[in-house]
Structure formats: C-alpha cells, structure tokens
C-alpha cells in the first residue's frame, strides 16, 4: 500500500500516485481520542504522539505533527505561564519581554535538544519517528524571526516596535529570534522531523505593506534560512494570503512548498508558482463547523478542480478547530480522497 511519504514525494516531483497528498492538521482533537483534558494531553510527549498516530490511522490522511501548541516555543525562551482551556488551544499567559532590558536579557538556548522545555517534544518526535518508520512525514512548526516577538511581548507592542523603533532594540531582538529559529530547526531535524513549516505572517502583504515587506520581511527571511536548504521549507503565513508575494519569494529564496491561505485563489497561486514548487490548497476550516455535507463536498470539489490542474498540488487545512464535528472531518476527507484520486 502506498504511504503518505510516497504520495508527498511523488507530488513534489510532479508525479502522480494514487491520489493527492492530504495534510489534515488535527492537534487538540488528540486529547479527545485519549479521553484526556487538553492540559493533561499536552503534559506528555507520549500522549501527543499517541494522539497523532491514532488520528492519522483513524482518518487515513498523510501527515503527523510534532507541534503541541504554538506557545510552546515561548516556553523555550522563558515563558512561565500557559493558560489552558477545555475548548481550544492553550494561550501564552506570560510575556517574556515587558520592558526594553528584557530584550538584552533574552537568552537563546544553545542546545535546544537538551533543553528541559523541549523534553516532551523530543519524546513525541522519537515515538513518531519510530512508529511511522518513514511512512508518514513528521511536520514541525517553526515561528520565523519576525513573528516570534509577538509571542514574547504581544502583537501590539511588537508591531509598535517594528514600525516605530527603537531600531537598535528591534534589531537586537530580531537577531536573537532568528538565531532561535535556526537552532530550533536544527533540533527538530536532528530529532527526526522532515517537514519544516516556516510560519511567518509578516511574510504576507496582509500584515505589512509592500515597502516594509521589502525593507524587513525579505532581509529577515534571508537571515533565517541562510544556512538551510530552502527546498525543505514550507512557506506559511499563518492563514494570511501569500499569492501577491509568491513569485518574489521563489525567485529570492526557492522555498520548496507554499501553503496557501484559504483566502488565496488556488488557480492563481498555482499559475504564479508555475511548477517551481509544491502548492497546498487550504480549506477555510472554521466553516466546517456549520457546513452541511453537501456544502463540504462542493467546497472540496471546487478547490481540487482549481488545484489539480497541472501537478505539484496537495490538500491542506489550517489548525482544525476542536468544534468541528467528527462526521464533518470525515466528510471533508472522504471528498478529498474521492475527488483527489488519480485512479
């Protein structure tokens, strides 16, 4: 039987397997599978790995996640409080940077792999690697240098500093978060992850105007990935649109995959990429909560009609909300397996 990894490699090489690859990003749902609260679930790497493996087996999609929740990166840099909810992802409850001196004091751990706050993630990765045995790609989530400060000081303060300075403090912080990005990526790679999601809302013109994109986003992307094979990276703007920048990003950096926004036109995205990279068409998964089965199938068909023109395409979700009914997840996936079949 063909594996998720084989499907992905075929798509990346412009070849057809049995169907398009499907990346379904179920995270919090793992707690429900194991009958645990979200707080218990995220307390142990063994639980997260088991949840990921069970859900992939249950639904049949192609990827596994080593991501617990986005705020976990802030814990590696000193965040002492994560706020849990029973209904959705945990939140950062302690801002590491509250005053300018905190930027000077911010220390980037040299060895992420042996950092106590990485211990459970490492356990999760080791289990996923052992159990998936190369059959299913293991994804990791890496926040770009320009986006990481929002987890450390809040988006409001970060945008203010980005736009109005002080420039020396801003640059000092970005140098540190860029260093953190590189060290995290190396740790995940060493631990067995093979899909590296470069998450950067500031890589979208929905977040910054073109002038700032050129002035800040481009140089800091360059800095982040300077010693990394860009083909191994997935360009992702946290759900913000990327079509207007894809051509520039390919020409300047050569990212291997573009994970579109649900608001990007898939046909347009594919035309811009023009076979130079793999492209994910991404569903607006919040709508999956209320859509009927017919609406879900219609939307999946619309997306795949646009994306399957030509090659190098796969189907993706954002981080699926916990409130999506299980039967709607199944309806979406069955529709993708059906309409996305090459047989």
């Amino acid at each position, binding site marked *: 039987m063909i594996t998720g990894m084989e499907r992905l490699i075929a798509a990346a090489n412009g070849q057809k397997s049995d169907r398009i690859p499907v990346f379904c990003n179920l995270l919090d749902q793992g707690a429900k599978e194991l009958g645990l609260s979200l707080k218990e679930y995220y307390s142990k790497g063994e639980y997260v790995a088991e949840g990921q493996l069970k859900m992939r087996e249950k639904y049949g999609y192609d990827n596994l996640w080593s991501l617990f929740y986005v705020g976990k990166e802030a814990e590696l840099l000193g965040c002492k409080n994560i706020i849990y909810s029973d209904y959705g992802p945990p939140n950062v409850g302690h801002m590491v940077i509250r005053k300018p001196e905190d930027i000077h004091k911010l220390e980037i751990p040299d060895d992420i792999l042996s950092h106590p706050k990485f211990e459970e993630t490492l356990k999760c990765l080791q289990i996923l690697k052992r159990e998936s045995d190369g059959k299913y790609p293991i994804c990791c989530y890496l926040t770009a240098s320009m986006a990481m400060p929002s987890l450390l000081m809040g988006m*409001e303060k970060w945008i203010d500093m980005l736009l109005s300075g002080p420039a020396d403090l801003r640059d000092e912080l970005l140098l540190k978060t860029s260093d953190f990005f590189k060290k995290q990526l190396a740790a995940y790679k060493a631990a067995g992850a093979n899909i590296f999601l470069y998450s950067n809302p500031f890589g979208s013109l*929905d977040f910054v105007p073109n002038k700032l994109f050129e002035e800040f986003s481009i140089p800091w992307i360059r800095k982040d990935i300077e010693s990394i094979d860009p083909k191994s990276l997935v360009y992702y703007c946290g759900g913000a649109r990327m079509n207007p920048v894809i051509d520039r990003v390919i020409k300047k950096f050569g990212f291997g995959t573009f994970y579109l926004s649900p608001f990007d036109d898939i046909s347009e995205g594919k035309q811009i990429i023009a076979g130079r990279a793999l492209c994910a068409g991404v569903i607006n998964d919040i709508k999956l909560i209320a859509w009927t089965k017919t609406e879900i199938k219609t939307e999946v068909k619309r997306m795949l009609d646009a994306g399957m023109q030509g090659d190098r395409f796969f189907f993706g979700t954002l981080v699926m909300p916990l409130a999506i009914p299980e039967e709607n997840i199944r309806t979406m996936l069955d529709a993708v397996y059906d309409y996305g079949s090459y047989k």
Partner: protein
Amino acid sequence: MISKIKEAYNQAIFDTDKNAALRIVHEALQKGVTPETIVFNVVVPSIEYMTTSIRQNFGASLAQHFMTAQIAAQVTDEMLAMFSTPSKIIGKLVIGTSQGDFHGLGKKIVIGCLKAQMIESVDLGLNVSAEKFVNEAINHQAQVIGISSMMLHTARGENACLGVRKILIEKELERKIKIIVGGAPYRYDHELYKSVKADAWAENGIAAGKVIAQLISEVQP
C-alpha cells in the same frame, strides 16, 4: 489646501510613517488650519479612506491599520485640547477581549479610530467576563459593548458574546445596549456573529467605527 493636506496625510499613513503624518498636521496648524478641521476633515476622512481601500482590496495591511489608529488617536488627543469649544461625544463603548483571550491588538485599533469619530471608549482590557462587560457598560452608561476575539473558542464560548447576550436579556437591557464583535474568527465565517448573538460585526478595527456609530444611533435612550 485641505485636499493637499489630506492627500499627504493619507500617504504618510499608507507608508506607516508616523513622523511624516505628525509633521503634516503641525505644518497645517502653523498655516492656520483649525484643530477642528484637522480632526474632521483630515483624520476622520483618512480612516474612511483606509476603510474604502480595505473593501476594494480585501485589506490594507495590519501594520497600516495599526498606524492609522495610533496616529488618529495621537492627533485627536492633541487637537481636542485646542478645540475652540468642547467636542460633543456622540456615544460610548466599552470594549475588551472575550474571556480566555489575550490578544489585544484589534481592540487597540478600534479605540484609536473611535476617538477621532467622537465616540468615547472604555478599555476593559483582556480576558473580560460576560458579567464585567455588562456591569461596566451599565456603570459607564455605554450604548455599545465591543467584544474582540482572536480565537474561535473564545469567540464562541458561553462566557463571551453568548453570555453577554444572556445577561442583557435577563436585565431587559437589549434595547439600551448593543453588542459588536470582531476578530479573526469572524473574518473566516461572516455568519458567526449571528450564531454568537451579536448585533453586528466589523471586519477590522478601522471599519468598526461606522458600525459602532450606527449601533449607537439605534439605541433607545
């Protein structure tokens, strides 16, 4: 002259250049333009201009929204102190993020823009309970409650807008206090505001002013 000032100010906002925007305003004052004219004929139209450009092209960037609001608030504060007669406030809003939500950028943009539109806002901060939203609206005699949520579960939660609506019904305040919601989940599902029982939603902080002004006009004294 005003149209040239407006044009230059709008360009500064689009370039997220706060210093340039402030310089344009101060030069206008030196040339004899009144503070009232600057607020009502330069700052408020620039917010409307940004709203229009957002509608036409799905979005000027978040950075531009932030800068529009920040400069609007700063200029309005400065000009209000120089008004020849005190400005007339058209209404009041209490605003905060829903319980469990710690993302304050959206509400900051709303507050910044409202000031120039002569709507007073009371910032209740982050992680605000339904009870606090209603109690503070009563205490401040606000016509509108603004609830900002960045995450789906904090938008749909029982202690967010749904909870506020429940209390307004219990206290028979529905005609006196309206609810507006906003934040990322509402942009992904334009019908979501109905399922959380809000009166209205705004696509972004910049556009919220008009919706809030409309809600204020609908409130029965």
